[in-house]
């Protein structure tokens, strides 16, 4: 049995216990033990600070956007129902905002996994031209160092750190520590599957059978014996987004990437900035052809609250998602199957009842603790 250091948090605002051995009425039923980096232990002070940073709109070029703008606590830490996120001056990005809930368990961050940790991840949206729009991180540090309340909070969270020494290292560590408290299990499914409680209806149970059987879902959205994150942490081309790239452009862009790789050069800015390149997905990170059009398997926890779906938000409902997979990786009957499709995706021939039950099952994965109504 995993015993976690029973630390710090007994009297915290967010009641969270890391004792996995005891009775699981802590909201964590169905979750594995959380890996916390040794250089960034979770403390109450750091979490409170992180939450404040997460919600602070001053760290954007217009002073209007915070992390919470696209990861709103009121919307299960997404910006549902937006298709793709809206940053400064209502500029839209190319990707759907993923929930922060349980992102602490991800082995990589972002839809294409280009960031290895939560600490690294939060560096990027601040300086993304369509997200928070800063040129560099300097204004963040300046704002913090000139705000006595922040200076005090950083002192408390980081061993009395000097005002002049506060850097993005501490900022991102605090945000990551806060995000590591946003872990949520204990859904109706968890109570049924891991505790044997009669919390699911007969149709929802049938839906789970489809999930692990004909639906082939569980192969990527993994369910383990003692916990379930509903992801394999891998990247798959499931036929979303890639069809938007005209064949000629795909060949041209891919060859730009591969030429840069072959010549050991950096990829040209122009290619990276081409919005079509966004749908190359994981390929643009690894330059491996097996990653063409691949995106990270997202968790299914709280999926009912995070519509629309897929990396580009192109599918509005869970029913549309199921239809997409049922066709074997196409969003309509007219859409062609792309040749880079992940080997696991194939037509499913599910019945109407199976599809309905599958969607009903996915709606049992909603947790409660961190969801503000």
């Amino acid at each position: 049995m995993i015993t976690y250091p029973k630390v710090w948090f007994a009297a915290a605002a967010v009641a969270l216990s890391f004792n996995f051995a005891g009775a699981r009425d802590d909201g964590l039923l169905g979750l594995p033990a959380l890996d916390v980096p040794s250089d960034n232990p979770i403390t109450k002070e750091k979490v409170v600070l992180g939450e404040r940073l997460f919600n602070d709109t001053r760290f954007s070029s217009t002073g209007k956007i915070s992390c919470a703008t696209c990861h709103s606590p009121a919307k299960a830490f997404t910006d549902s129902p937006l298709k793709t996120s809206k940053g400064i001056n209502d500029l839209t990005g190319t990707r759907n905002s993923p929930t922060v809930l349980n992102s602490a368990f991800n082995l990589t961050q972002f839809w294409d996994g280009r960031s290895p940790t939560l600490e690294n991840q939060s560096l990027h949206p601040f300086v993304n031209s369509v997200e928070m729009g800063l040129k560099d991180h300097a204004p963040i540090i300046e704002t913090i160092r000139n705000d006595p309340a922040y200076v005090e909070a950083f002192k408390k969270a980081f061993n009395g750190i000097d005002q002049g020494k506060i850097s993005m290292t501490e900022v991102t560590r605090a945000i990551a520590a806060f995000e590591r408290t946003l872990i949520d299990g204990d859904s109706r499914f968890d109570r049924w599957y891991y505790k044997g409680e009669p919390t699911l209806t007969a149709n929802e149970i049938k839906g789970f059978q489809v999930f692990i059987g004909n639906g082939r879902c569980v192969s990527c959205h993994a369910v383990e014996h003692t916990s379930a994150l509903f992801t394999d942490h891998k990247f798959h081309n499931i036929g979303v987004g890639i069809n938007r790239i005209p064949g000629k452009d795909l060949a041209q862009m891919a060859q730009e990437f591969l030429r840069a790789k072959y010549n050991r050069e950096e990829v040209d800015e122009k290619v990276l900035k081409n919005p079509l390149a966004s749908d190359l997905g994981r390929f643009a990170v690894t330059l491996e052809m097996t990653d063409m059009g691949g995106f990270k398997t997202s968790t299914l926890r709280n999926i009912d609250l995070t519509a629309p779906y897929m990396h580009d938000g192109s599918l509005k409902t869970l029913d549309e998602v199921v239809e997409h997979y049922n066709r074997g990786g196409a969003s309509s009957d007219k859409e062609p199957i792309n040749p880079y499709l992940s080997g696991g995706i194939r037509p499913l021939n599910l019945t109407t009842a199976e599809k309905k039950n599958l969607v009903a099952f996915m709606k049992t994965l909603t947790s409660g603790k961190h969801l503000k109504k």
Partner: protein
Amino acid sequence: MSRNSRRDFLKNAALLGVATLPMSLVRLSFAKSGDDFTFAYISDSHIQHIKGNQFVRNWDMGLKRAVAEANLLVPKPDFVVYGGDLAQLGTKAELDHGAEIMSALKYKTHYVMGEHDYYLDLGAYWEKLFGPQWHSFDHKGVHFIVLNSVLTHHHWTYERWPTAERRMAEMSGLDNPNGSPFMVGEKQREWLKNDLAKVPKSTPIVVFSHSPLQKIFKGWNFWTDDAEQVQAILKPFQRVSVIYGHVHQIQYNQIGNISFHSVMATAWPWPYPQSYALAESHLPVLTVPMNRADPFFERDATGWQFMNVKTGRVDLTYQLPNNTTRTVAFNAKTGKPGDIAYQEKTKRIPPQDHY
């Protein structure tokens, strides 16, 4: 493979560089200097007709992916070799459908005959689509030879079976006592002798055959019956590589001056033959269904394979899905190819002994 290690790989290795998604890119640097070039290799797609315009989806997808990836390759290959078994039962429908998928390739393609292409009409329709069953060509200082190595005895071919369909079915079975060993045959060996007579002994030779031109396992025709005679014809040449399909698995070998390397299939991987095992297998029968759709990943063991013949020997780096990248390189000490990371017994990954 990380970007950096990949760059190092390209920097350090580089020569006959092959990739098989299911496809292989071969870069030959022992050609005349300044004439480095690459070619791609795709093999064993087994396009299978169900009925009407229906074909087995998974085999279609494997070939389509190989073609799509070959078209993206940088550097651009000078030509493509198709290693045989384009069809499953050699029908016109299958060969046409396979040819149609292959027509998306942007490069000149040389085709090798597989037994699944051959034994219905003895290559008649295949020849119409793809040209002669054996031929040779020179490219930038290398002499390339394409052989039909899946022929067999006259009696078995022409007299034994009541129908062509039956003949095809008998030849496509594994461990089939009614089967017959593959061979290049006397007529083609004569042609090969004549073809090579005018080639200087220092010219690098690359032979493409469907079956291995060596004897590995007869029950599955991982075998060419007149392999020794063919090898004898190739013996006078300083650097010879034989690249073959058919086995749907990773194989490498060295016999004298000849390096042998298989290329993986786009369709499916074969395990090593059960009947070839030296010890009895105690694999239990699976009675409890697994909590997964299995097999899930259809492209398993049909990965990328990079060949490097900088030294005149073929070194291979394999990139298989969900697997550690491995390199099989020529070991000067042992005089044969070996896995560079797993030669020491103590360093090997122990085999799985529980299920």
